[in-house]
């Protein structure tokens, strides 16, 4: 065994990742002032992109890091919109309602987790779908929603179109930034290590002192809250609320697509996947059925030939890590590698396939 005479150092970032952190800050600052230079249509599209990033990041945290694969996350998307409608109807300022609604979604997901986290793997995945379908039916019973006819966030109409567009853009940008920061902080801390340990082997995690259920619950509630924010923001951009649109399983299908294409279990992968999905939709979204066929084909091709997704493959091949959440031990003899990038593909701490 290697005899390291000096104490090894634990590294969290690399030279590249420190540059990446600055780049992220610059990009967010540029995005914040961008509406002044962009057309109304582009501002709307960018708002959509931010929502996609939130959705992808949340599903990735749940499935890629926590091993909780769900096909029913649309329940929180739909509820995020529904509670916003309800709160606005009760007289709350519509913009405030968006976030109050997400908090309620988080609160609702807590008791739900008591039941759902008892289920394992496939049972959990399908069970969530059942919950989503059931919730959809219950929401339809609300007279305010008028069944599948739906309703609108009418109170938003008191703001003129320009103000509304830019405000929603900023809210989406701020939400995305804050949620990504919270996720990154959580996954990078010791709770994040526990989350990944549970994903890899629940029994072993319990045997070394990890609070399995409590940790899973935290992740579940956070993902519900985040997706609730996304649902409420979507309502704000589209104004109308039709239950079957919001509680549609397509939302989860999109999340899975973004995460698989981007690279499951890597923080960067979910963001990249959202951007890729957004571009595909922008360029081919108008082609109707063929767009969906193309999405399906792309998902199949990725899972066959690039199972680690785009970012997972890049990370493996080039040892590139922009937003690392893992730990690396630098021994004395590695000290000559100042970049700390040590291109040892097998040493990266990505997730194996969980899906």
């Amino acid at each position, binding site marked *: *065994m*290697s005899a*390291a005479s000096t*104490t*090894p150092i*634990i590294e969290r970032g690399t030279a590249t990742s420190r540059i990446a952190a600055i780049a992220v800050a610059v990009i967010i600052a540029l995005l914040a002032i961008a509406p002044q230079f962009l057309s109304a249509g582009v501002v709307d599209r960018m708002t959509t992109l931010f929502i996609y990033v939130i959705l992808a990041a949340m599903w990735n945290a749940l499935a890629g890091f926590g091993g909780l694969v769900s096909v029913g996350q649309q329940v929180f998307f739909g509820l995020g919109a529904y509670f916003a409608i309800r709160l606005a109807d009760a007289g709350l300022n519509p913009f405030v309602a968006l976030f109050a609604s997400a908090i309620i979604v988080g609160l609702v997901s807590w008791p739900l987790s008591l039941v759902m986290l008892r289920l394992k793997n496939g049972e959990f995945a399908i069970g969530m779908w059942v919950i989503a379908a059931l919730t959809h039916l219950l929401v339809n019973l609300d007279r305010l929603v008028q069944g599948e006819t739906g309703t609108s966030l009418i109170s938003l109409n008191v703001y003129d179109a320009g103000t509304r567009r830019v405000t929603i853009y900023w809210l989406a940008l701020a939400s995305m930034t804050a949620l990504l920061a919270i996720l990154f902080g959580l996954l990078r801390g*010791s709770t994040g*290590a*526990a989350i*990944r*340990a549970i*994903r*890899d*082997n629940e*029994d*072993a*995690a*319990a*045997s*070394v*002192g*990890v*609070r*399995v259920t409590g940790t899973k619950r935290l992740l579940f509630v956070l993902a519900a809250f985040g997706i609730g924010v996304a649902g409420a923001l979507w309502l704000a951009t589209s104004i109308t609320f039709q239950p079957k649109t919001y509680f549609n399983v397509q939302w989860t299908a999109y999340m899975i697509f973004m995460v698989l294409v981007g690279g499951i*279990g890597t923080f960067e992968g979910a963001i990249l996947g959202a951007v890729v999905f957004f571009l595909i939709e922008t360029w081919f979204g108008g082609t109707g059925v063929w767009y969906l066929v193309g999405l399906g084909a792309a998902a199949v091709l990725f899972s066959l030939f690039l199972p680690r997704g785009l970012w997972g493959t890049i990370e493996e091949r080039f040892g590139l890590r922009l937003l690392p959440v*893992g*730990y*690396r*031990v630098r*021994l004395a003899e590695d000290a000559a590698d100042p970049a700390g990038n*040590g291109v*040892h593909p*097998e*040493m*990266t*701490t*990505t*997730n*194996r396939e*969980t899906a």
Partner: protein
Amino acid sequence: MTSPTDAAILSAAGVHKRFGALVVLDDIDFAMGEDEAVGIVGPNGAGKTTLLSVLSGAFPPSSGSIAFKGDDVTALPATQRCRLGLVRTHQVPKPFGGMTTFENVFVAASHGAGLGRDEAYEEALGSLKLCGMIGVANRRAETLGLLDRKRLELARALAARPTLLLLDEIGGGLTDGEASELVGTIKELRRRKIGIVWIEHIVHILLQVAERLICMDAGKIIADGEPRAVMADPQVIRAYLGGGPK
């Protein structure tokens, strides 16, 4: 020696474990003092691993009770027992495959031992060094071979700072050199006053560490005492060699 006493750090009283109609543990009474090193031998299917699982809290006994450090822990799950200092390894290694070797051990140090970040780093590195794994610290655990996976089980359990360590066949398949390395590691743990319960088929390795030996057969303890006396016990020889009635 087999009856629970006040001085016992770990004791089991009247423990049964049934899986359906199958009785795997049949009225086990067992107690060990602080800082003792107990070996457990017995033919396959004797219930050794099941006993370890019941002691560590992986699953509850069908009846009977377990006490650790004077408190009844029968109802406590594995997570809590680990935090109290009762930690096990797994016969079939259960690494966190998608995490690095260091991260595997770090989880135990920060959650099992409840250490803050810097202390957890130190504890994790220390236990990797002790188990000779610092060279593969950055390897993803799923890429490790069986020998390293077994070492990782030990390193990870150690990082949780046990007062009593339950080892399940960590010596299987080792060469003589590797085995003596392992014995050296265990002897170091003994110097640190960590109690040991060790299930092992390779008796000559076990006897270098164990001060007391228990032999199990068909869910019962059939012999318990000074290792050489236990190995010479006619019942033990019959359990292993399967001799018919004399």
